[in-house]
C-alpha cells in the first residue's frame, strides 16, 4: 500500500497539469468558440482597396471626415474655424464620397496613430487590420501598431474613477447571433483625423457598432456616434471592408522611419536622402 502512494500522486499530478494546459474536449469554452464567426484574416476598407488599384488617384475621403450633425453651437464654431466657407474636406455622411480627384490640404500629412474611430475607416491600403475572435474578446490589430480590445466576457465599462479618455476608448461587446455589437466610450476628445473639417468629437461621445460579415470576404460596420454635447442627433455611418488576399501576414508600418517630406515654407517638399 505504501509503495502505491507515490504512483497515485504522480497520476494526480499529471492529470492536474493536463487540465491546466488544455481545455478538455467539449468544454464550455470550446462550445462557446464554436458558436462564434471566424473572422480571422486581414481586412481593409473597400475605399482603400479601390485606391490600391486606382490609376487615376481616386482617393476617397472617409465618411468620418465629413460634417457630422453638429448642434447650433458647434455648427457656429466649425463655421468660424473655416471662414472661407465649407471645410476643404467634405463627404456625404453615410453616403457616397464626392466624385473626382480628391487631395488633402497642401500641407496635410497623415503620419500618426489613427486611433478610434479612424482605425475603422482607413482610406489607404497600408493601414490594414487583422481580427481575432475569442469567447473572451475580439481583438483588432492594426498595421500602425494599435490593438483594439473589445471585451465580450460580460464585463462592464470601468467605473468613472478607473476610466480616462484614450485614443482607442474603452470597448465592450456582445454577440447577437453572428453580429458583434460594440459599445465604446472614453475616446479622447478631438477630431477623428488631423484634417481640416474632419468630425470633432467630445470625450463624452458614445459609439455603438454592429460588425458582421456580409459574405465570406466582405464585412460591414454600422457605426452610430452619439455626442449630445456637440450633435443635434446621432450620426450613422456604414463602412464596408474586404478581405486582403495579396499578403499573408500583417506587416507593421512606421511613419517615423524615413520621413523625407518635411513642410518647408508652407509646403511639403522631398528632402535629400539621409
Amino acid at each position, binding site marked *: 500500500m505504501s509503495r502505491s502512494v507515490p504512483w497515485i500522486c504522480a497520476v494526480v499530478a499529471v492529470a492536474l497539469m493536463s487540465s491546466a494546459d488544455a481545455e478538455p474536449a467539449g468544454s464550455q469554452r470550446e462550445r462557446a468558440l464554436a458558436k462564434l464567426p471566424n473572422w480571422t484574416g486581414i481586412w481593409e476598407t473597400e475605399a482603400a482597396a479601390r*485606391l*490600391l*488599384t*486606382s*490609376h*487615376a*488617384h481616386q*482617393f476617397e475621403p472617409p465618411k468620418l471626415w465629413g460634417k457630422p450633425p453638429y448642434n447650433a453651437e458647434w455648427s457656429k464654431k466649425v463655421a468660424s474655424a473655416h471662414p472661407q466657407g465649407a471645410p476643404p474636406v467634405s463627404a456625404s455622411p453615410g453616403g457616397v464620397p464626392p466624385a473626382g*480627384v480628391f*487631395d*488633402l*490640404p*497642401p*500641407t*496635410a*500629412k*497623415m*503620419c500618426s496613430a489613427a486611433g478610434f474611430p479612424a482605425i475603422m475607416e482607413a*482610406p*489607404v*491600403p*497600408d493601414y*490594414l487590420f487583422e481580427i481575432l475572435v475569442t469567447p473572451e474578446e475580439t481583438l483588432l490589430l492594426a*498595421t500602425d501598431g494599435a490593438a483594439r480590445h473589445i471585451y465580450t466576457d460580460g464585463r462592464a465599462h470601468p467605473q468613472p474613477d478607473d476610466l480616462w479618455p484614450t485614443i482607442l476608448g474603452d470597448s465592450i461587446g456582445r454577440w447577437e447571433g453572428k453580429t458583434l455589437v460594440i459599445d465604446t466610450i472614453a475616446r479622447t476628445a478631438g477630431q477623428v483625423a488631423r484634417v481640416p473639417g474632419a468630425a470633432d468629437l467630445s470625450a463624452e461621445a458614445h459609439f455603438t457598432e454592429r460588425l458582421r460579415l456580409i459574405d465570406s470576404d466582405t464585412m460591414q460596420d454600422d457605426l452610430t456616434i452619439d455626442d449630445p454635447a456637440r450633435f443635434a442627433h446621432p450620426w450613422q455611418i456604414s463602412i464596408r471592408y474586404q478581405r486582403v488576399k*495579396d*499578403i499573408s501576414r500583417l*506587416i507593421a*508600418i*512606421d*511613419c*517615423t*522611419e*524615413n*520621413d*523625407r*517630406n518635411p513642410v518647408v515654407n508652407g*509646403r*511639403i*517638399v*522631398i528632402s*535629400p*536622402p539621409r
Partner: protein
Amino acid sequence: MNAVQQIVGAAAVLVAAPCMAHHSMAMFDPAKTLTLHGTIKEFQWTNPHCFIQLLVPKAVGPAGAGSVVEWSIELNSPLASYRLGFRPRMLKPGDQVTVVISPVKDGSAGGQFISATDATGRRLPAAKEPT
C-alpha cells in the same frame, strides 16, 4: 535619346501609379510627366515612402558631359508597394532603368513614381492590373 524627356498634358497620366496619400499630393504636378533614363544609386525600402535615388546624366553637350543629377523619386509605402508587386531587392545599385514620374512643382530633382522599365524594356514590377 535625351536622358530626360518631358511630356505635358493630362493625357500623360494614363499609367499613373496609385496615390497613397500619406500627405497631400499638391507638391506634384499631375499634368506633367518626365521620363528619366538613369542608373539606380539606391532603392530605399522605407516607411512612410519608398524612394528610388536615380542618377541621370545631364543634358548632352560639352557643358554637361559626364555629370549627373540625382533624382529622388517617391513611391508608396513598403507595404503598399509590396502589394503592387514591388520587392525590396528588385532594384539594385548600378541597374539601368527608365522611370516615368510626375515631377515636383518647384523644379527640383524629385517626383512621384508612375512607372518603370528595366534595360530590356520589361515593366517593373510585373505590374498588377486594376481589377
